[in-house]
């Protein structure tokens, strides 16, 4: 790539860094990131067969994060702690897709992929790498090892879902399509006084009590007692509780209760 880079600096005044890069307009198809989809996946469309997903990941925290994202949607999951376990579990469990970490003890992701490809049915399973590398040559190496795709870390849940839909021909249910459910608002959610004013004072006081104690379990138990007519407020409250907006919720509840008493 041609171009130039330079720097000029005057003591006491400042520095100027400049660069010039020669680029040509892009040719061919414009690839729009699938991550731009704004809908929140809440489940698989009914009538789809069971979808077994193997997570090959040696770091429990990372495996747990994937489980957290995928399990509620309805995937059947198993975790392998290294490449060797992934090969063994593939033989016994026949997953449809494997999320394969690249660096693992005992056997790394690329070696495991090569082993799986040699086994009966190994040519059909989809294997997707999770990589922290941003370098193209690394990505080429991933693809040449026999994997079908890769996702760069850190990833967004939508990237995982889109990748799985591409390879497994899946259809999802999205939050906004849920009957009677309002669309998930962007955070931080705006839950105002008038909305909370539709709830009884006893409920608000009880909720304030448990939220001040940071007790999400009790808060959720209370929210779940709300009648159907308060569904929208319930969803908004659930969002705040599940995302730990303790301070905001306390401020809001106190303001509404103070207003009522004055």
């Amino acid at each position, binding site marked *: 790539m041609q171009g130039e880079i330079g720097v000029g600096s005057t003591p006491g005044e400042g520095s100027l860094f400049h660069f010039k890069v020669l680029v040509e307009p892009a040719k061919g198809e414009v690839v729009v990131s699938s991550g731009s989809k704004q809908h929140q996946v809440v489940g698989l469309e009914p009538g789809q067969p069971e979808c077994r997903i193997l997570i090959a990941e040696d770091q429990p*925290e990372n495996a747990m994060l994937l489980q*957290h994202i995928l399990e509620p949607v309805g995937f059947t999951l198993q975790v392998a702690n290294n490449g060797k376990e992934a090969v063994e579990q593939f033989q016994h469990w026949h997953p449809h897709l494997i999320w394969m970490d690249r660096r693992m003890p005992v056997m790394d992701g690329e070696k495991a992929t090569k082993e799986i490809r040699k086994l009966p049915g190994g040519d059909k399973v989809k294997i997707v790498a999770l990589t922290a590398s941003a370098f193209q040559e690394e990505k080429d190496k991933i693809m040449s090892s026999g994997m079908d795709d890769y996702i760069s870390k850190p990833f967004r849940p939508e990237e995982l879902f889109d990748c799985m839909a591409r390879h497994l021909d899946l259809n999802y249910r999205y939050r906004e399509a849920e009957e009677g459910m309002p669309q998930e608002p962007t955070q931080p959610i705006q839950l105002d006084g008038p909305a909370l004013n539709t709830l009884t004072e006893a409920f608000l006081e009880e909720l304030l009590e448990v939220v*001040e*104690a*940071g*007790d999400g*379990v009790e*808060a959720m138990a209370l929210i779940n007692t709300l009648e159907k007519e308060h569904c929208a407020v319930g969803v908004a409250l659930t969002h705040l509780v599940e995302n*730990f907006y303790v*301070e905001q919720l306390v401020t809001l509840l106190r303001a509404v209760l103070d207003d009522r008493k004055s």
Partner: protein
Amino acid sequence: MQGNENCSYSGDILVVDDAVANLKILVSLLDDAGYRVRAATSGKAALMICEKRPPDLVLLDVMMPEMDGYEVCSHLQAREKSRNIPVIFISAMDNSNEKLKCFDVGGVDFITKPFYAQEVLARVKTQVRLVMLQRELQQLRRECDQRR
């Protein structure tokens, strides 16, 4: 702000971290291990929670905006209701000075990020056990005092 009500009481833990993703992982880890878990994303919220209903243990992130972990721990130590709550710091900073500072402000242990699940559970278990033993001792002492 999750918990596990299906198992016997094994400890009530408050996790404090401004990064919701970290918080969710820690909450899930401790919840799965059978602890009752509460959570806060700021020092201010943590202090309010400890004042309202003190937990058995606090897992506290060091680097947080507005009020960092050191300040939160100092406030906890200064308050009657929370001064005996053990605090385990969690931080990506791994140098001796930072660790010493955590102990200086009243922390009882230190976990380095990225953390390992088993290490977190082992350290939490040790501190919760100490809390329980302390309570047992206090109870025995009270009973002895009453008999005299």
